[in-house]
C-alpha cells in the first residue's frame, strides 16, 4: 500500500535523477562531439583514460575541494554563531532574522557581479580602503594567490544565512528544561553548548553540511561571473570545466566523463564528511539517560 503512495515521488526521482545519471554513464564510454557530428560512437574507455591523464581535471578537482572545504567550514562555524545569537531573546531580533536572509535571497549572478565591482581594482571600495590603510592596491581578482579567497569570501557571504536558518530551526527544537536542569547542577554556558546544544543539533549540522557540500562542489555561476575561472585558471572548478566541455567545445562524451568521475568522488567525500562529523560531535545525551558534567 505504502508503495503506491510513494510512487509519484519515486517516478519523479527516476526521471530527474536516475535517468540522467545513466545517460551520463553511458555517454562517458562514447565519443560524442562536434568532430563526430554529435553522434555517439562507442570508444571503450578512451574518455576515462584521457581523464586520468588530464592534469587540468585534477588541478580543478583540487581547487574545487579547497573551495568547498574552506567555504563550508567557515559557513558552518559562522552559521552556528549567528543561529545561537538569533535564538536568544533580544529587542529587534525578528527584524535582524529577516535581514540576515537577504544575501541568500539574492540571485548568485547578481551578487557575484556586485562583488566583482567591489573587488575591482582600482575603482572598488576594497581597493580604496586598503590604499587608505597603507596596504596598497591588492588586485584581489587579478592575482592567482588571492582570487580564490575572493570566491570563498563571496560564497560564505551568500550562503551562511542558509546554514544559519537550518541550525536556527534545530535550536528551536531543543527543550528549554534541559538547559535549566544542567544549570541547576552548576553547568555554565560553555558546558551547555557542549553537552546539550551541539549533540542535539547534530542532525541539523549534518543536514546543513551535506546540503552545502553538495552545492559547493558544483559551484558554477559564482565563479563564472566573478573570475571566469582565471587568473591563470586558479579558480576553475570541476563544474566550470564540465560546462566548457559540453557547451563551448561541444564535447559531450568527455564532459559526461568529468561529471561521472566527479559524482563518484564527491559522493565518497560526502560519506567521509558525514562519518567524520558523527565521530566529532558527541552523541545524543538523552540516549545515555544522564547528563554528565
Amino acid at each position, binding site marked *: 500500500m505504502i508503495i503506491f503512495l510513494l510512487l509519484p515521488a519515486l517516478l519523479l526521482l527516476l526521471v530527474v535523477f536516475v535517468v540522467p545519471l545513466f545517460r551520463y554513464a553511458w555517454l562517458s564510454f562514447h565519443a560524442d562531439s*562536434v*568532430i563526430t*557530428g*554529435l553522434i555517439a560512437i562507442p570508444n571503450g574507455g578512451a574518455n576515462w583514460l584521457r581523464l586520468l591523464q588530464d592534469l587540468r581535471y585534477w588541478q580543478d578537482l583540487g581547487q574545487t575541494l579547497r573551495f568547498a572545504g574552506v567555504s563550508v567550514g567557515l559557513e558552518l562555524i559562522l552559521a552556528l554563531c549567528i543561529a545561537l545569537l538569533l535564538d536568544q531573546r533580544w529587542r529587534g531580533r525578528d527584524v535582524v532574522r529577516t535581514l540576515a536572509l537577504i544575501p541568500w535571497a539574492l540571485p548568485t549572478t547578481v551578487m557575484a557581479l556586485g562583488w566583482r565591482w567591489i573587488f*575591482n*581594482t*582600482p*575603482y572598488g571600495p576594497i581597493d580604496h580602503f586598503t590604499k587608505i590603510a597603507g596596504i596598497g*592596491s591588492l*588586485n584581489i*581578482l*587579478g*592575482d*592567482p594567490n588571492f*582570487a580564490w579567497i575572493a570566491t570563498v569570501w563571496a560564497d560564505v557571504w551568500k550562503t551562511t544565512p542558509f546554514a544559519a536558518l537550518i541550525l536556527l530551526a534545530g535550536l528551536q527544537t531543543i527543550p528549554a528544561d534541559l538547559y535549566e536542569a544542567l544549570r541547576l547542577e552548576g553547568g555554565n554556558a560553555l558546558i551547555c553548548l557542549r553537552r546539550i546544544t551541539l549533540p542535539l543539533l547534530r542532525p541539523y549540522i549534518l543536514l546543513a553540511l551535506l546540503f552545502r557540500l553538495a552545492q559547493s562542489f558544483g559551484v558554477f555561476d559564482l565563479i563564472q561571473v566573478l*573570475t*571566469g*575561472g*582565471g*587568473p*591563470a*585558471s586558479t579558480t576553475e572548478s570541476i563544474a566550470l570545466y564540465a560546462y*566548457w566541455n559540453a*557547451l*563551448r*567545445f*561541444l564535447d559531450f562524451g568527455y564532459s559526461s566523463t568529468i561529471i561521472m568521475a566527479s559524482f563518484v568522488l564527491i559522493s565518497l567525500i560526502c560519506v567521509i564528511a558525514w562519518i567524520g562529523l558523527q565521530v566529532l560531535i558527541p552523541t545524543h545525551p538523552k540516549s545515555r539517560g544522564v547528563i554528565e558534567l
Partner: protein
Amino acid sequence: MMRHSHFIRRIIATLFIVLICSAGFGIAQARSIESVSFLMAAPFADATQDLVKQFNQEHRGNISLQVVRGPLETEAMSDLAISSLLLGKAPFDGLLMDVTWLPKYAAAGWMQPLEDYFSETDIASLAIGAREGNSYDGHLYRWPMNADMGLLYYRTDLMELPPETPDQLVQVSQSLQKDKKVDWGYVWQGRQYEGLSCVYLELIDGFGGDWLKTDSNQIGLNSKPGVEAAAWLQGLIDQGVSPRAVTNYGEAEALQSFKVGDAAFMRNWPYAWAELQKSDSAVKGNVGITTMVAKPGHTTATLGSWGLTVLKGSSHVDASIEAIRFLTSETAQKQLFLKYGYSPTQQRVIDDPQLLQDKPILAEFGRALKVATPRPQTALYAQISDVLTRQLSSILTGERTPENGMNVAAANTNQILMSAGEKP
C-alpha cells in the same frame, strides 16, 4: 424572467457567432502568413525593434517577423542557442551569431547553406573585412549585419598623432605617466576569457606571426612573433604601463578606466565610441580611434562581427532570407549606425558621403574593417582559444615565462588538433 433569459441567450448566440467567424478568419490568415522568428542577443533585439516593425508593415499579410530577445552577453547567448539546437528542432528560424561560432555550428550540422540565396554581386557589396568569417567548408552560412573590430582608442588632448608601433605606444605612455598626465598608459582586456584571445591575435599578427593557419594547421604560438607578442603584453604590466589589475579586466573595466581619464590608450570594440561620447564621460571630445599598434606592414584588427543565419529544419527559408536582406540592407545599416553606433558591413554605407560628414568616425571604422582578420576558423576554435587564454593568463600573472607559456599553449593546441584527426 423569461425575457431576461431570452436576452442572455441572444447575447451568447451572438458572441458564439462572432467567435466562430473570427476563428475562421484567423485560420485563413494564419495559413497565408509565414511567421519567421530570429533569436538575437538583447542589445540587437532592442536595436532592431524599429526595423522589424517596418518590415512587418511592408510585408503585412505575407510574412510576420518576430525577434526573440536573448540574453545580454555573447557567451550566454551561445549557451541558449546551443541548448535549443541540441533538442533537435530549434524553435527559431534564424539566429544572429558571432563570427567565432560559425565553424562549430556548421560542423554540428545546424545551419542551412545560403550560397543559393546570395550572389557574387551580393558578396562583392560587402566591405573586404566583412566578407571574412561567413563561410565554412565551402558553404556560405551567415550574412553579416554589423561589423566589429578591435580598435585602439587614444586621447587627442594628450598627443597629436597616435603611436603606430608597439615600442612607440610604450614610449608615449611612459612619458605621459612621468609627466603625471595619466595614471596608466594603456588599458586592455587581460582577464582569462575570449577577449584576451582577441587582444593577442592583433599582436601576434602585428609582430608578423600567425596564431594558426587553418589550411595547413601550422601553429605559430611558440614562434618568435608569438612569444614576442606575449612578452610585450606581460612587459606592459611589469613596466607599469598597464595596471596590474588588467589581469582581471574585461571590456567594461577597461572602458571605465579610460572613460574617467585615467589612461592614455585603450583597446576596445566600436561600441565604446558611443559610450565615450556620453555626458558622463570625462574624455568626451578628446578621443581618437586608430588601428592596433603593429610592426610596419602588419597592421590588423580582430574581426568580431555579428551575422544572420538560417537554421536547418526551418520551414520558412525564403521568408527568412527576405527578412535577412531587409535587416542588413543599406537603409537598415545606416539606421543602426546612426542610432546605435553599429558599424556597417556594406561598402556603400561606409563610403556614404553624407554619413561620413555627419559622423567622421565612420572613416576609422572602415579603415580598421579593411584590415580585420577573423580568429582561426575551425570547429575546434573554442578549445584552442581556451588553452591560449589559460597560458596567456599564466604569463600575465607571472606564473610562467612567455617562452614557457607559449610552448605549452602550442603543445596543447597541437594535441587538440591531433585528437580531432586534423593533424597527423
